[in-house]
């Protein structure tokens, strides 16, 4: 099995992109990544396209085939990968396996989603299709609803407070305001969303105990990476980033069938496998992109991957340990909360951000100093399909 490096990355600003079709966004991100890798006029051997909703929202299928045609990447092998909100990481994993196996040399992975084409009610329904049709979906449960029920249990078991959740929202929106690719570029204040009595209108409950500012926005966007064997990466001008380890694990689909619904076993297992493969420990990580579709998840994942003990993640967040300059900067990009969550694109965008960090390419206000090791966690379903990557800077 060969070592696999990332030699090119690209993404487009996330947000509401009415003027772009899904294929437009996938194409733009792909071209940026190809150009970044110096392959702007070349081809690749295989393409993996991450997407969850094209069939339902855009009434379009077989989008990988459509993309290679559009981008003149024919006759590359091509497939679309659907794994709910973890489609992005799944596609990266498939690209990684393709190169590691020795069967393919240059592989492009691109993830994209166009969710704002439909009204909020329909987008909510689309995301809810992940839940169990008979035992969950039929009741009108939504993903914020699942997160709300999870948060209530987490608060009862570990004493996580609303103020701790809010500190994550404030941190991520502050960082998002500095990220040109971010959907939400507005810093918020604790007064405006919590302390002031006016916060009842500014920050209403969406699925209590979660409020509006605990949830990520609905976004359009796309992100792409180019993979190749590490031994070939030295040819390229930018410092390669090695995918040092990966892990994936699943859990029960319904929340009710988990022994302890606050125990995100799939996150723990996926991260453990990634660390083991990379021969690194949580303490070795300098920067992380965790899946904060809801603020509670950033806190819970920071514990389950091993940055903090169970029950300490909220305290760590509110005391600044997860800020830029803190013990372990988490979601310096703004995370899903501010950068946005076009579901198919997110897993790829997380990798793109870590590559920016490990290449030391970012402005001072966003760059983690001397970052060498990074972690991504992409959460599918509601914690029932999780992927983690450990990425490492390769010194030339």
């Amino acid at each position, binding site marked *: 099995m060969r070592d696999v490096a990332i030699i090119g990355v690209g993404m487009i600003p996330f947000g509401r992109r009415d003027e772009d079709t899904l294929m437009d966004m996938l194409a733009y991100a792909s071209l940026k990544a190809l150009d970044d890798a110096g392959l702007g006029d070349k081809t690749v051997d295989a393409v993996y396209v991450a997407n969850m909703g094209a069939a339902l929202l855009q009434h379009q299928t077989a989008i990988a085939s459509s993309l290679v045609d559009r981008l003149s990447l024919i006759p590359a092998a091509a497939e679309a990968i659907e794994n709910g909100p973890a489609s992005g990481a799944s596609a990266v994993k498939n690209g990684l396996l393709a190169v590691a196996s020795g069967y393919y040399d240059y592989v492009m992975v691109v993830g994209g989603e166009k969710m704002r084409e439909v009204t909020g009610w329909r987008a*909510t*329904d689309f995301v809810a299709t992940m839940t169990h049709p008979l035992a969950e979906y*039929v*009741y*009108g449960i939504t993903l914020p609803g699942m997160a709300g029920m999870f948060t*209530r249990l987490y608060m009862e078991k570990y004493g996580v407070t609303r103020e701790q959740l809010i500190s994550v929202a404030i941190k991520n929106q502050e960082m998002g305001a500095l990220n040109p690719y971010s959907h939400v570029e507005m810093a918020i204040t604790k007064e405006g969303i919590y302390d002031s009595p006016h916060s009842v209108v500014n920050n209403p409950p969406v699925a209590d105990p979660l409020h509006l500012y605990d949830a990520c926005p609905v976004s359009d966007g796309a992100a792409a990476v180019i993979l190749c064997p590490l031994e070939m990466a030295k040819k390229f001008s930018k410092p390669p980033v090695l995918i040092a380890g990966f892990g994936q694990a699943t859990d029960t689909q319904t929340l009710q069938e988990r022994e302890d*619904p606050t125990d995100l076993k799939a996150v723990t297992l996926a991260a453990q496998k990634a660390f083991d493969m990379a021969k690194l420990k949580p303490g070795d990580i300098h920067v992380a992109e965790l899946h904060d579709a809801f603020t509670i998840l950033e806190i819970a994942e920071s514990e389950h991957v091993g940055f903090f003990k169970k029950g300490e993640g909220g305290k760590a967040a509110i005391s600044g340990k997860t800020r830029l300059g803190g013990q372990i900067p988490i979601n310096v990009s703004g995370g899903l909360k501010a950068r946005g969550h076009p579901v198919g694109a997110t897993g790829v965008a997380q990798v793109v951000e870590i590559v920016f960090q490990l290449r030391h390419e970012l402005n001072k206000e966003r760059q983690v100093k001397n970052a060498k090791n990074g972690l991504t966690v992409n959460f599918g379903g509601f914690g029932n399909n999780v992927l983690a990557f450990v990425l490492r800077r390769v010194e030339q």
Partner: protein
Amino acid sequence: MKEIAIKAYKCKSCGKIHYPFHDRCLSCKGRDFEVVKPLGNGKLVTFTQIFNLPWGFDQRFLIIGIVEFENGIKAMGQIKVQSSEELRTGMLMKPSWEPVRVEQGENVFGLKLEPI
């Protein structure tokens, strides 16, 4: 009163209760199950009040929770209260089988819960 039409599955080898259906037991991978129905009342495990409903619902909010029945079956249902402030985890809920949504003009039945 309609019967609670939830079918749970008890593994004949190791006794583990499943709802919804699994072809193989989550504990021992066995394939033989006996059908069991929820017995008695449900203890509230967790709940939430959801605003921003999916397409197909006309009301302002939905209150949804998970209960554990007296014989170990756990299930999700809609809760008949005006606000989640009326609820506490651990409360006892009475189950019923009523319309929970309308799909293509037809009522879809499911589990509803009411505090005792």
